[in-house]
């Protein structure tokens, strides 16, 4: 281990001018600047006959930049909402918080990788996906368990599922060494969102990309407030946003080496009104300010003698300022500042013992600390050391992969007492087999044991700090199959994937809000049985091209804490049993039309499964039309999107109404 660390630390010295030292923000990362049009067009052509990869070792679902418009996606949360097994928690509005939970596990169990490096939040454990926009994103993949590659950070092994975001990398020719994409989006909520992307080739090996955008909106929208006897229309106010982000990445690629240096700064002021309450005017004036910076760098070397190295480093700093002008304390407002920093290094080595047998070792070291202007704050620092060994065996009809993660955590505080050190081993096993002559059919399965730690909030930040909290452990079992076939004729391809799973959660961490204070407890056990089904196809019919995808999610997530309790075997709050997501598109020549439909069955917002906690099912439809053309040899894309086409009144989170019908228009030109 020591050796690994010194290797990591010394490594930057080998790369003059490109020290892998980073500033980094935990949260936001993205940039507005959509992928270049040419590339999009190319992709459409190519992907139209290339079927999506469905036959991985692990269940995974991917969406790439060309498809974002199919889903009216404005941010990462929108882009992944059709995935099977995913529940998005959405507080509504342009600036509303959005988190993703996968297969009945809380959002803290899904880690977000950004070009392979985790966006970590030691304070809350959850990344607000509304802060991640799509302009510089090439592709998003959700992996259950962990990504199947071995050349990756130890953190990639350390969560129950991984949402991996890959940014756009410049691939330019000497004949045209630059590519500039400029665009603007605007529409309902007073949205104005101009963006710019500049890709530049410097020479054979070096290139860079810069993305920047601003996003402003007043955010106001109408909603229905129902007091049980009558319904009145109110306006959600104070949901405006003012966001700026700049993201730059420098790349160096040779046959043996890949290097990148990524810098990102995100600045946002968001109105974040609280719950809508009966008989009192809507809340107003609550604001969340984020100032997030990160620097991350990666270096990959291939010795071509069966050995590969991947080094990553990151620094991030997240500042969060919360202001509530209606807080009923003696000064009449609440004004709080929080900041957290992360210093992170990772090294991974992969060795090919035989062409079909790889082994790897990954080691990550991270230091997280946090400040807050709270009385008696403890100023925690967490040092996490992760070590993973993994191996992968491939034969013609089957593969076998296994990994063992060791997590070692040490926490210190400036004042008060801290938690004991932790040392946990967590294994993963996965296998695939093609049992039939038809090699398009593959069976797969995995088992993973992993946990999520109590966050700084859970441990230190509440009135009653709870230092006895245990990690929340999960066992995941999955068995599924995929069938995918390229076809000639009417259908380009068809893919079908189905996975049944069983997840078991113990020591579930639950935040208990009470009127005067709140705290987190290890409160129970959960049994989750689920089914993820996905089908996708593409049809050519004369000059028309039709795309169709459908995803189905079944989740039975039961509270099995205490057989004597009235809530035993109740479905968990905010967990619909059935979700259906449909997407259809038709394109002819320059024009494409897309339609998206998400249906969620009813849910409960509390632990009882009774009428009082009932939240009705909802169906939300979106549609878009895209027109691609060339103006003076410059590719131009125009699009119009309608969200919540049928103006349905619904809520995802109790007392946080969602917007009705809204429009968004965009214009983009590539030079």
């Amino acid at each position, binding site marked *: 281990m020591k050796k690994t660390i010194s290797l990591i630390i010394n490594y930057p010295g080998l790369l003059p001018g490109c020290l892998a030292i980073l500033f980094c923000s935990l949260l936001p990362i993205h940039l507005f600047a959509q992928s270049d049009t040419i590339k999009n067009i190319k992709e459409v052509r190519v992907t139209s006959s290339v079927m999506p990869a469905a036959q991985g070792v692990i269940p995974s679902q991917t969406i790439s930049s060309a498809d974002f418009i199919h889903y009216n996606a404005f941010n990462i949360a929108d882009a992944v909402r059709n995935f099977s097994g995913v529940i998005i928690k959405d507080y509504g509005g342009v600036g509303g918080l959005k988190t993703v939970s996968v297969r009945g596990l809380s959002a803290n169990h899904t880690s977000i990788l950004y070009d392979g490096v985790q966006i970590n939040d030691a304070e809350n454990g959850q990344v607000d996906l509304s802060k991640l926009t799509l302009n510089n994103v090439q592709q998003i993949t959700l992996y259950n368990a962990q990504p199947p590659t071995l050349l990756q950070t130890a953190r990639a092994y350390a969560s129950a599922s991984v949402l991996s975001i890959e940014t756009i990398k410049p691939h330019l020719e000497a004949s045209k060494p630059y590519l500039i994409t400029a665009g603007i989006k605007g529409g309902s909520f007073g949205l104005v969102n101009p963006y710019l992307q500049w890709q530049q080739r410097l020479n054979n090996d070096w290139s860079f990309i810069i993305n920047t955008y601003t996003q402003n909106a007043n955010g106001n929208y109408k909603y229905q407030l129902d007091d049980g006897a009558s319904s009145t229309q109110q306006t959600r106010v104070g949901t405006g946003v003012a966001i700026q982000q700049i993201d730059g990445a420098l790349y160096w690629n040779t046959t043996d080496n890949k290097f990148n240096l990524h810098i990102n700064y995100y600045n946002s002021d968001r109105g974040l009104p609280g719950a809508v309450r009966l008989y009192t005017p809507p809340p107003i004036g609550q604001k969340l300010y984020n100032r997030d910076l990160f620097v991350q760098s990666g270096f990959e070397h291939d010795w071509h003698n069966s050995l590969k190295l991947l080094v990553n480093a990151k620094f991030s700093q997240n500042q969060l300022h919360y202001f509530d002008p209606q807080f009923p304390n003696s000064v009449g407002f609440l004004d709080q500042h929080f900041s957290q920093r992360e210093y992170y290094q990772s090294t991974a080595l992969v060795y090919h013992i035989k062409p079909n047998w790889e082994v790897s070792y990954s080691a990550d070291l991270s230091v997280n600390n946090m400040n807050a202007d709270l009385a008696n704050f403890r100023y925690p620092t967490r040092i996490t050391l992760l070590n993973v060994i993994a191996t992968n065996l491939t034969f013609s009809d089957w593969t076998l992969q296994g990994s063992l993660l060791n997590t070692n955590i040490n926490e210190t505080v400036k004042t008060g007492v801290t938690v004991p050190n932790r040392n946990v081993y967590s294994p993963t096993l996965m296998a695939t087999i093609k049992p039939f002559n038809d090699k398009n059919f593959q069976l797969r399965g995995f088992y993973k044991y992993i946990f999520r730690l109590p966050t700084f909030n859970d441990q230190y930040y509440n009135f009653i700090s709870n230092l006895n909290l245990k990690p929340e452990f999960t066992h995941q079992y999955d068995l599924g199959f995929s069938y995918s076939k390229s076809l000639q004729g009417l259908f380009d391809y068809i893919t079908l994937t189905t996975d049944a799973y069983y997840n078991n959660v113990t020591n579930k961490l639950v935040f208990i*809000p009470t009127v005067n204070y709140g705290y987190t407890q290890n409160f129970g056990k959960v049994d989750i049985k689920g089914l993820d089904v996905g089908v996708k196809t593409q049809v050519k019919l004369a000059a028309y091209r039709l795309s169709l995808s459908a995803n189905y999610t079944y989740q039975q997530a039961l509270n099995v804490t205490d057989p004597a309790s009235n809530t035993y075997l109740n479905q968990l709050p905010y967990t619909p049993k059935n979700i259906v997501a449909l997407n259809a598109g038709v394109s002819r020549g320059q024009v494409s039309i897309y339609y998206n439909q998400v249906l969620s069955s009813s849910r409960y917002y509390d632990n009882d499964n009774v009428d009082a906690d009932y939240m009705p099912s909802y169906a939300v439809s979106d549609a878009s039309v895209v027109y691609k053309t060339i103006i003076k040899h410059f590719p131009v894309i125009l699009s119009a999107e309608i969200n919540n086409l049928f103006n349905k009144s619904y809520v995802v989170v109790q007392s946080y109404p969602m917007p009705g019908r809204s429009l968004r228009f965009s214009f983009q030109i590539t030079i």
Partner: protein
Amino acid sequence: MKQFKLNHLFIVLAFVAILASCHKDKTTPTPDKPTAQRAGIYILNQGGIGKNNSTLTYYDYSSKTLTADQYVAANTSKLGDTGNDLGIYGSQMFIVLNNSNVITVVNAKTAKLKKQITLNQPRSVVFYKKNAFVTSYSGTVSVIDTASLTITKTITVGSDPEQMVIANGKLYVANSGGLDLTPATTVSVIDLTTLAETKKITVIADPISVTADAYDNVYVLSLGNFVDVNAGLTIIDAKTDAVKSKPTVSLGYNIPIYVQGDFVYFPTADNKIAVYNAKTQTLSAANFITDATTLAVPFAISGDPLTGEIFVTDAIDYSSAGTLYAFDKTGKKEYSITTGTNPGKIVLLDK
């Protein structure tokens, strides 16, 4: 509380509550012998903060029927957000809805709405000589004329006042300061003739619950400051308005306190119901409950002086239906009733 809002924003995202606690005994109340004058029992359930699910459970002694939400039954519309206190005065019942910023006045027998009185962050209500006194997180006690149902006077007290009690002709108000960085440490004394604050008595930090016995003792339960001051009990002599004692008792973070006869009942850190003897000023029982009944989260305590019964609610996990237990005077369970979420106040209704 300070950072409660922020918790709300983030952590609350994660609260898929699962919980614990043990009682599956469904509602089969067979009240022994409610005296002829009692019509039934109201339980005000807070619901969850921001969930608009406060409810008013009513159990009718003669028809033996349980109504999960008497307010909705009477009015169709919902009660609102975070019903924190309830009091009956004459034919009227005052329901204090903290986060809806209203005091909902209803007919006590039917729960039919008479009027909603707007008040910022109201917390608790007591009555004295045709006036209702309501604390508000604005740092005030509002005086409401129970005939006209209008606020006639606003008395400034300390920060974030919580519960009140009347003893020796004076109103004692717990100034919690619970939403400030540093909790408050006083109880305001209000002269009920002049309706003005006359004194502030220093007590243990973050006082929340108050009650009084027949010997002019005022009992103040405080949460402490969560750092170096633990939750504790301060006893004030209402004759002299001086602190009489601070007996060492075990306290948790849910601290209802109730006096019946010579005994003071409050929950302990391990969720038992301790009994303090008001006459001898000593702890008389570590646990009032003498059978196998256990509580997960004792949330409200009340009783019927006519029968000697003691009622205790259990919020269980704060996110599902609670339970009301009725114990006889010997601490044996008589029956239980399923309530709404976070049953925070129990009040008997007379015929």
